[in-house]
């Protein structure tokens, strides 16, 4: 077992006071903090190796290329991809999903086709499919969420009727950033495959929190962001099965993706280059690889167990607060390390502002999940989301702060 208190020492940002109190950072669902090792990787790159990649034959350029391609191989290993070429670097989850929605959608969606997704997708895994469906004259359908508080997870029985051969693509989140629901992704991929639908997994909330194996899951595409898994901002990944990638046209075009260019035409390199027009975020990729090293050194299974411990404690203690409504599944195998809740009569933003006065960073709002909020009859929730550096004592501070808030706003 890693010593979780030593882990805190790895994160410079945690050792500060906010409003006179030691910072308690519980906004990991939005973005994670960065360990010294990741920051050092960026600094080292800029101080020793910085150069443009691929097109250079001088020493710095070769070093930068090796580091960049090494980062790709590292990420491929992190998700157990069969081949580094299946790892495309993007800005983040949102761009990765847009890439599939546009390139794949443009090539494959026709009028009458169905794109299937779920009722609790992040806007980034919803609006790109609205756009793709509209552009093609296809229909967007939703697997329902069960339970008045969304506690029942995906309606797998409804999937039987929804997953018809008309479904060309099925996009779903691995972990809901609002409900904390962990979807049965392997089963979903298996069932999609049975009707010939391509699968796209939004792994923004999962890949840095638990072991993840794209081949075991059996997905076609998988998207995630570096910044939510201890990596830098501005870097993310689209994993795509080689067989599918090689048939896709590039999404963005420009330098670095071409074999031959005339004034009127161009031909493309294979993946991954085909999908990475222009100078990539070289430092970002290198920082992401350092984050993979950091997380694997601790063990993602251990991180998942730690998240689970924290969310169990949090849910137990939060449940005791008056007027609280917690959404999403109970603690357990279907619940990730975050908890969203609402109080009768106290709005999430007031909660967040008060908690901040106690040095506690929470998120309040619709969590980029407006249709889900509406379905649950909520306008916003407060979310506490945990990661490897959080502690049980921090949850106690959260609970104490919430008690004070309820008293302040109380009748």
């Amino acid at each position: 077992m890693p010593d979780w208190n030593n882990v805190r020492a790895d994160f410079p940002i945690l050792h500060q006071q906010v409003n006179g109190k030691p910072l308690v950072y519980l906004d990991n669902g939005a973005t994670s903090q960065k360990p010294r090792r990741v920051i050092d990787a960026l600094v080292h790159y800029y101080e020793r190796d910085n150069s443009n990649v691929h097109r250079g034959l001088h020493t710095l350029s070769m070093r930068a290329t090796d580091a960049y391609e090494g980062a790709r191989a590292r990420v491929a290993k992190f998700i157990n991809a069969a081949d580094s070429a299946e790892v495309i670097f993007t800005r983040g989850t949102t761009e990765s999903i847009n890439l599939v929605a546009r390139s794949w959608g443009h090539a494959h969606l026709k009028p009458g086709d169905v794109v299937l997704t779920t009722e609790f997708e992040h806007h980034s895994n919803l609006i790109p499919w609205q756009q793709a469906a509209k552009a093609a004259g296809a229909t967007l359908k939703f697997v329902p969420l069960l339970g008045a508080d969304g506690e029942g997870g995906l309606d797998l029985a409804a999937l039987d009727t929804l997953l018809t051969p008309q479904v060309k693509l099925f996009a779903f989140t691995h972990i809901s950033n609002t409900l904390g629901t962990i979807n049965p992704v392997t089963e979903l991929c298996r069932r999609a495959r049975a009707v010939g639908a391509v699968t796209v997994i939004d792994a923004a909330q999962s890949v840095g929190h638990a072991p993840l194996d794209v081949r075991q899951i059996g997905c076609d595409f998988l998207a995630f962001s570096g910044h939510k898994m201890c990596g830098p901002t501005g870097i993310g990944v689209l994993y795509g099965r080689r067989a599918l990638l090689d048939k896709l046209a590039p999404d963005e075009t420009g330098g670095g993706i071409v074999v031959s260019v005339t004034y009127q035409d161009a031909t493309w390199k294979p993946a991954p280059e085909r999908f990475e027009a222009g100078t990539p975020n070289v430092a970002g990729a290198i920082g992401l690889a350092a984050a993979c090293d950091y997380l694997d050194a601790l063990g993602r299974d251990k991180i998942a167990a730690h998240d689970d411990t924290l969310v169990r404690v949090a849910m137990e203690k939060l449940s005791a607060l008056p007027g609280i409504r917690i959404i999403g599944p109970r603690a357990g195998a279907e619940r990730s390390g975050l908890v969203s809740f609402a109080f009768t009569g106290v709005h999430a933003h007031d909660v967040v502002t008060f908690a901040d006065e106690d040095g506690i960073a929470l998120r309040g709002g619709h969590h980029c999940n407006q249709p889900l909020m509406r379905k649950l009859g909520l306008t916003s929730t407060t979310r506490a989301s945990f990661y490897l550096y959080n502690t049980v004592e921090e949850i106690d501070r959260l609970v104490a702060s919430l008690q004070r808030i309820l008293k302040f706003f109380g009748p």
Partner: protein
Amino acid sequence: MSDLADLYQQVILDHNRRPRNRGKLPTANRVAHGDNPSCGDQCSVYLRLDGDRIGDISFDGSGCAISQASASLMTTQLKGKTAAEAEKLFGEFRDIVTTGNAPEEISDIGAFAGVHAFPARIKCATLGWHAALNALKGDPVTATTETHKD
């Protein structure tokens, strides 16, 4: 806590708990809707113009204490005002929430002076006002606070 106590003044807590003029105004001849897309705060303002004066006004919506109290207080301030007077008052209100300086002669809306220490909440405090001004302009489009630079 002193900043927070300034933010959540008694007047604000009171308007938040017991909002004035809340709900759809049946006799309204103007309506506008305000949205704070980052937070999800929403506010609709209904008003009845009698000649060039606001004969009656109400609001509806959901959001934090600041946005709801501000909209509630606003309705009490705007009743009977002309559009020009309403705009002038909003100017004063905006000065208060952005600078924290509330001139002595200004009473109730001065309670929002504490907002200036929480710049992210300025949008909450002005949401209802933007909707009201849009309604006065006869502009039924959604006012989003993102388009306004306050």
